[in-house]
């Protein structure tokens, strides 16, 4: 369980000014939850994510991971072991000389037995459609392929908590859905043994709809913490915070506005319709 208590983070710029990036965030994320995080650039999403596993430490307040404080340096290694992070620019986190070895890298460090490691690498190559690139040097992959590789390498380790910081910014919508399905699959597989938590930062509102809970940050504070559908129905508030909403919420709002009728259509009917038509 993640317990975030009155989390403040301040940075000092090199001109000496203090910037308050997070201004008192308090929330709890239970094991096995699937949470999307949205917010404008500069709202504190990435800072928030980096506080979760102690990459950044609170200026004030605390972050407890299963009761362990990120400020306790003795526990930091144990805390980090429980997290897998995927960042926005995949080039920043790829270390190996081939695609296959990149996926194996984390598993090797976790001392996963050889046969099992091979099986997991094969599975990830297949799931992320990277089989034909097995022996490719990662730097020759396209941006989107590299993003898939970064995801595969982290998800292969099956960490207790997955934290994604806009990991799909270079992916087309079909591949994005695939990534989200895989996250769901991993969570389900894990549920029987130890529940896996997924925290997914995104700018793409349709992605947030796949999660049970949506936290919207605005200027370093929690603006909304609700189900995605409820959050997105507050169209004006979301757009004012610089957060886009899926087109159906914008359309509903617009039609209601122009017709004065509050029942033009039900967004959940559209979602049901999409599910029925999904291949």
């Amino acid at each position, binding site marked *: 369980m993640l317990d975030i208590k009155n989390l403040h983070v301040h940075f000092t710029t090199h001109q000496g000014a203090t910037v308050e990036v997070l201004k008192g965030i308090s929330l709890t994320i239970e094991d096995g939850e699937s949470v999307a995080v949205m917010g404008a650039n500069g709202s504190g999403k990435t800072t928030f994510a980096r506080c979760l596993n102690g990459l950044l430490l609170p200026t004030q307040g605390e972050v407890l991971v299963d009761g362990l404080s990120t400020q306790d340096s003795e526990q930091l290694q144990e805390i980090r072991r429980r997290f897998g992070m995927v960042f926005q620019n995949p080039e920043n986190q790829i270390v190996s000389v081939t695609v296959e070895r990149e996926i194996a890298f984390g598993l090797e460090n976790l001392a996963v037995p050889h046969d099992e490691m091979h099986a997991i690498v094969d599975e990830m190559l297949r799931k992320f459609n990277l089989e034909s690139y097995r022996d490719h040097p990662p730097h020759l992959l*396209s941006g989107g392929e590299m*993003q898939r590789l970064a995801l595969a390498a982290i998800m292969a380790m099956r960490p207790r908590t997955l934290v994604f910081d806009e990991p799909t*910014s*270079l992916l087309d919508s079909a591949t994005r859905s695939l990534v989200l399905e895989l996250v769901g699959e991993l969570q389900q597989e894990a549920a029987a043994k130890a529940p896996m938590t997924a925290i997914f930062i995104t700018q793409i509102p349709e992605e947030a709809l796949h999660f049970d809970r949506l936290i919207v940050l605005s200027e370093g504070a929690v603006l909304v913490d609700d189900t995605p559908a409820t959050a997105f129905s507050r169209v004006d508030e979301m757009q004012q915070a610089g957060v886009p909403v899926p087109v159906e919420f914008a359309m509903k709002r617009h039609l209601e506005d*122009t017709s004065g009728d509050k029942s033009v*259509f039900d967004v959940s009917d559209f979602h049901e319709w999409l599910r029925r038509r999904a291949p």
Partner: protein
Amino acid sequence: MQILIENLSFAYESFGVKADPVLKNVNLTISEGEAVAIVGLSGSGKTTLMHHLTALLKPDAGHVMVNGQDLQSPQVKLSEIRRRIGIVFQFPETQLFADTVFDDVAFGPRNLDLPASAVEHRVNKALAHVGLEIEKFGGRSPFSLSDGEKRRTAIAGVLALEPECLALDEPTAGLDLDGVRAVSRLLTRYHSSGKTVIVVSHNLEWVCSVVDRVVVLEQGQIRFDGSVETLFAAAEFLPKVGLAMPRVLQLFAFLREDQTAARPTAPSADDIKQMLAFQHLDGAAGRRQNDRKSISLQPSLLQNRPVDEK
């Protein structure tokens, strides 16, 4: 400026071995003043195609001609071509380096040996294009900016070379609503000044709100090349090339089927573009200023709405 791509094929090489071709016999003409999107799955060859525009990669077969000049000809001055076609790479903000926004944007023009006054003029103009006021941003460190501002600063650095053609690779990746809106505006502004704009993007819906023509790549081959209107009308082919049907089109289809809903008539391409703009550009801006008149989507949408029985 006219760009003519003829029978272009290309494969990357790794340790002396050619991999599978990334581009296969691509033919494409882009005329002066066009705004063209190149869309496709990751790995479909979008970025590779863009890198051929300024001979950052050399074709294995075929030609890239700019204003009738073959880029492989020894007479072509590539430095000149690269000034006239400005490429904005993926995550261009990672290339910011100077102490101030002004110096970063001025780097290109200074290298053209322009006098200081001309450099300043160009920096002013470029920053105005991307919507960053020079008084407010010029003296700031690029590293103190938000992600969207960084992206715009990097784009301004390319604009300061005053290219006739601006080619951008995934310019909205990772940007928030404000950032996307700012990029949309600068593209529209640059295009309306008569310049050619080429946008590589996986985000079909966004890109349709800023260009007139869409080229769809699949596994290195062109599967579609036509207007946004034609693309919307023929959208059923998109899933066949691995692209998702734009959500806005699905929404219109749902509304047509749903008996209880508004039942709009078939939306015109203009309705769709407006809805996308509403989502991505003018809508939010309009809302913020409380000016809803900027959206005139409505009439054709609600025409067939059943009359309420009272």
